[in-house]
């Protein structure tokens, strides 16, 4: 079950969407949490004709030795209920700290429209209806936010109650007879709808939400064809929330989803409900930009057109767009996204539900950097002429020039660097090509030249993104988690909020959006903890499920081995790695990083240390001029005219992630694939095909002609890269620890890995929206 959970969830969601009259093609939410305060999420499935099957969605059963054992503690398999009722299958549920575990005796029976259903105690009426497949209209209720109960759209009739009840806020009680299709219900919904539309402007034709608007859809289904309101509609002043979120506050229906999102998920308490009654409005009171890395999600959360995307404004209508399911590559989290395109143009990017990775949120960088896909693109192969000008040439000429240059230098003088955004296919081809040329000097950007790839567990987020919720103490070492991996940070915030996990950090002081303890800035503090001379040690030792997250900024640290030794010592003393819990984590920065390590993109034994004369850059843009010897021949294969293109002698135009099918492995080791949403630009080609063509011209023909052939080669090197959406558990963790701590470590502060969250790679640097964000939120322009 677990191995295909991600895929299955997508399929099931589709199925649910077809079965229930879900009104909006959003990445929301058939999942419903029966206890809103617990971490337990139950996915509700319609199961055949005979009832409902519940599959709990927590604690992915993984192949790690430990998690299965842990899962079995919480998992219970309640027996099937009485005939005619509904069945449950709770095979794996990892209990959160303080979370209730559903026990068979805590099940209650209610009836929804005459159909009886067994539900766990504590579920709301709305969730009970959802289980039976009865969809209740709602605006303010959102399964991932706290319950507000203020829109009143979800009114249902409950037998023996005098009035309709708000189902989202009403706990289901034993024996409740819920009716959702009675005249009373219809009348109640129609009345509520009329009230909601009183002050709502009739501007659907010019509203960006038009066509995918909850209010529009639900008023079609539940509303009346006329209202009785003849007064003037009110107007509300628009708020300035920054360059990403456009506000048309007159359209707001005061559901307060955005307020709750900002407070609960994003952790920036800027938004609030101001005023009351007819003049109630959402606002910030003082002029305040929404400075959150997750702010774009309020656009999805907003059920009407009050909060819309500023960059997307007036560019497309939802029904013109083609949606392609894909993966985000702007960080190493691998958020699932939906690329909406019209013709050859990416119009917008939305999140896609993946409970184990990004839930239904994505970072602003993932959502809004798409305009960078259209700027600064390399569209033709180019060769630098002796006068320093780049000249467009044919593919054959460009490849021949590269092959010739490669053959003029010794293999030890060659080197290849894979960039941040490289897919596994092209990295595999690059490695094979250079190896065939006799070169073993290959590495991936951000790894440093001595990456440790022997053990996968040494560079992955071993705990897993979703399981981080269960940590009760987390030590961040040299990472600004909020900027390096916003969605991992959101998980940690969830743990802090729901189970009062404690977080401590060592490194540059950073603005985490939850309470945390800043222990120190560098190696000194780390070593004090490792040697047991710090009060934090006792706390770490007491924790049940402690976790350490090491930032990848430290992977290039001069004292890397000493720092890692100290971290391992802490992990060992805190018993953070044991059979049922692996709390040793590294957070990677780049989408390519994990895949590169699995493919072995590290310097081989014969790499040597000679001066580089031939440098092959596969989209590597983070090099400074000092890194590239002046007389070397530089090949830049990439999609953007970014930093390295200025130095290149030959430019080979490649593709961006929205144009190709590329395999990426995220920071927890989950393999996922992007899908081509738009055609390639100009004369550019798939990256692996370029290298394959080059190999032929260079006389070292790579033995694969198709993507499948290349993947067969990948299968031989790293089989997990072919198991899409399947988490390959890291190999057993073993400490390389010596008993003695190296005493020769220099005391230094940890570096910042991300200077500017909004501009980290060639796509985001080309994006105008990201430049606006930089100006607005960092007060400087790059």
């Amino acid at each position, binding site marked *: 079950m677990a191995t295909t959970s991600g895929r299955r969830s997508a399929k099931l969601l589709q199925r649910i969407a077809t079965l229930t009259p879900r009104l909006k093609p959003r990445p929301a939410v058939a999942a419903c949490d029966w206890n809103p305060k617990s971490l337990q999420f139950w996915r509700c499935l319609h199961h055949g004709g005979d009832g409902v099957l519940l599959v709990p969605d927590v604690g992915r059963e993984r192949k790690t030795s430990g998690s299965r054992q842990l899962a079995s503690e919480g998992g219970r398999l309640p027996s099937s209920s009485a005939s005619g009722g509904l069945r449950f299958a709770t095979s794996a549920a990892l209990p959160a700290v303080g979370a209730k575990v559903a026990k068979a005796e805590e099940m209650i029976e209610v009836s929804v429209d005459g159909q009886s259903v067994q539900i766990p105690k504590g579920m709301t009426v709305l969730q009970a209806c959802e289980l039976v497949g009865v969809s209740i209209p709602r605006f303010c209720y959102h399964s991932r936010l706290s319950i507000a109960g203020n829109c009143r759209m979800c009114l249902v009739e409950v037998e023996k109650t005098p009035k309709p009840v708000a189902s989202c806020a009403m706990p289901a009680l034993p024996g409740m007879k819920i009716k959702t299709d009675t005249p009373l219900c219809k009348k109640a919904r129609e009345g509520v709808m009329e009230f909601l539309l009183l002050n709502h402007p009739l501007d659907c034709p010019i509203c960006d939400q038009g066509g995918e608007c909850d209010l529009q859809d639900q008023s079609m289904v539940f509303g009346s064809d006329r209202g009785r309101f003849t007064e003037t509609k009110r*107007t509300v*002043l628009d708020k300035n929330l920054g360059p990403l979120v456009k506000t048309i506050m007159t359209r707001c229906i005061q559901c307060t989803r955005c307020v709750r999102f900002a407070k609960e998920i994003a952790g920036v308490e800027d938004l609030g409900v101001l*005023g009351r009654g*007819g*003049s109630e409005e959402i606002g910030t009171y003082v*002029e305040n930009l929404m400075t959150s890395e997750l702010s774009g999600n309020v656009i999805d959360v907003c059920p009407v057109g009050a909060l819309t995307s500023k960059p997307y404004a007036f560019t497309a209508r939802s029904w013109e767009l083609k949606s392609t399911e894909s993966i985000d590559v702007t960080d190493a989290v691998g958020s699932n996204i939906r690329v909406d395109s019209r013709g050859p143009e990416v119009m917008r990017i939305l999140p896609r539900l993946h409970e184990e990775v990004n839930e239904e949120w994505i970072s602003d960088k993932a959502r809004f950097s798409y305009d960078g896909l259209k700027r600064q693109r390399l569209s033709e192969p180019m060769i630098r002429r002796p006068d320093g000008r780049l000249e467009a040439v044919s593919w054959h000429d460009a490849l021949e020039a590269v092959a010739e240059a490669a053959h003029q230098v010794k293999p030890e003088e060659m080197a290849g660097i894979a960039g941040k955004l490289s897919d596994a296919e092209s990295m595999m081809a690059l490695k094979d090509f250079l190896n065939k040329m006799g070169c073993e000097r290959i590495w991936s950007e951000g790894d440093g030249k001595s990456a440790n790839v022997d053990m996968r567990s040494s560079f992955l987020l071993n705990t897993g993104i979703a399981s981080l919720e269960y940590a009760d103490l987390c030590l961040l070492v040299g990472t600004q988690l909020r900027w390096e991996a916003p969605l991992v940070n959101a998980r940690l915030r969830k743990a802090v909020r729901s189970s009062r996990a404690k977080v401590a950090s060592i490194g540059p002081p950073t603005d985490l959006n939850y309470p945390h303890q800043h222990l120190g800035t560098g190696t000194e503090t780390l070593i004090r903890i490792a040697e047991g001379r710090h009060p934090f040690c006792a706390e770490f030792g007491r924790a049940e499920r402690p976790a350490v997250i090491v930032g990848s900024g430290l992977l290039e640290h001069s004292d890397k081995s000493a720092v890692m030794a100290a971290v391992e010592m802490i992990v060992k003393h805190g018993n953070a790695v044991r059979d049922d819990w692996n709390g040793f984590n590294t957070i990677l920065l780049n989408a390519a990083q994990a895949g590169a390590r699995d493919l072995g993109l590290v310097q081989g034994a014969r790499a040597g240390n000679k001066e580089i004369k031939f440098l092959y850059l596969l989209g590597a843009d983070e090099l400074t001029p000092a890194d590239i010897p002046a007389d070397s021949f530089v090949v830049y294969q990439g999609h953007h005219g970014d930093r390295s293109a200025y130095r290149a002698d030959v430019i080979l135009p490649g593709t961006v992630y929205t144009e190709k099918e590329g395999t990426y492995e995220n920071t927890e080791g989950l393999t996922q694939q992007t899908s081509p949403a738009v055609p390639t630009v100009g004369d550019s080609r798939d990256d692996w095909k370029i290298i394959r063509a080059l190999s032929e011209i260079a006389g070292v023909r790579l033995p694969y002609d198709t993507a499948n052939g290349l993947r067969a080669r990948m299968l031989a090197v790293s089989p997990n890269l072919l198991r899409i959406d399947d988490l390959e558990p890291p190999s057993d963790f073993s400490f390389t620890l010596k008993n003695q701590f190296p005493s020769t470590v220099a005391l230094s502060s940890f570096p910042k890995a991300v200077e500017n969250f909004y501009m980290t790679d060639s796509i985001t640097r080309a994006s105008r929206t990201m430049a606006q964000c930089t100006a607005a939120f960092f007060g400087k322009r790059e």
Partner: protein
Amino acid sequence: MRSWRLASRAVAVYRATQTTGSALRPLPSTVLPSQIQNQDGVCRPMSTALLMHRDKPGNSVKDDWDFSPENTERVKEILSNYPKNYKQSASIPLLDLAQQQHGGWIPVQAMNRIAQIIGVAPIRVYEVATFYSMFNRQPVGKYHLMVCGTTPCMLCGSREIEDALLKHLGVTRGEVTKDGLFSVGEMECMGCCVNAPMIVVADYSKGSEGYSYNYYEDLTPKRVVELVQELRQGKTPKWGTQNPKRINCGPEGGNTTLLTTPKPPVCRDLDAC
């Protein structure tokens, strides 16, 4: 668009022009007094522009604001009424104290200071301050006169009372007189319907120590002007009913009912059980 909708729209537009035409016409009670004029003095009856702070002299996020030493003691006392982990419960009493100390209104920095004291985000305090119409976020006079505009008072002539006040003081609703002494606002039912019409005088002239909040009931346009004159002379008129023939809320000329102790309700004889 259907014809009926066009028609209703036309009616709405017609009514809107009628409403905006006369400045003194009472507004729907959902509109708070402070919202009548926006920053630029332009009348926008259904706008809520003032639920937003804009920096100006005397009310800027750059100002310093803190409770006075005496009031700091009272803050401690107020906080001691609530459990330590529910300090945010003190937001309303603290806003009230800040308003008394600051001459009848709460600048944005006072709200920020309160947020700091009770350990919440400032927006949570703004929410409370904007919700309650008794918290003023714009300067008011030393005597803030609030006219009850709810149905019983309105039927007994509260509009005439308000007109008399505004005419006497030469201000519009929400405006402060040039000498800074008076401002007129509207408020909802204060529960004095039996003595309608009534106004409330919030006296901020003596700081939070001598702060008073008095009801003046059974008013006539003439009497309310006299009240203002007495206040201007520094007197404190006797609060309560202004009809000399009435005692508190009793009827004019003495009681007509309930002259003897009423009989207890009929009840079965419990001793017999």
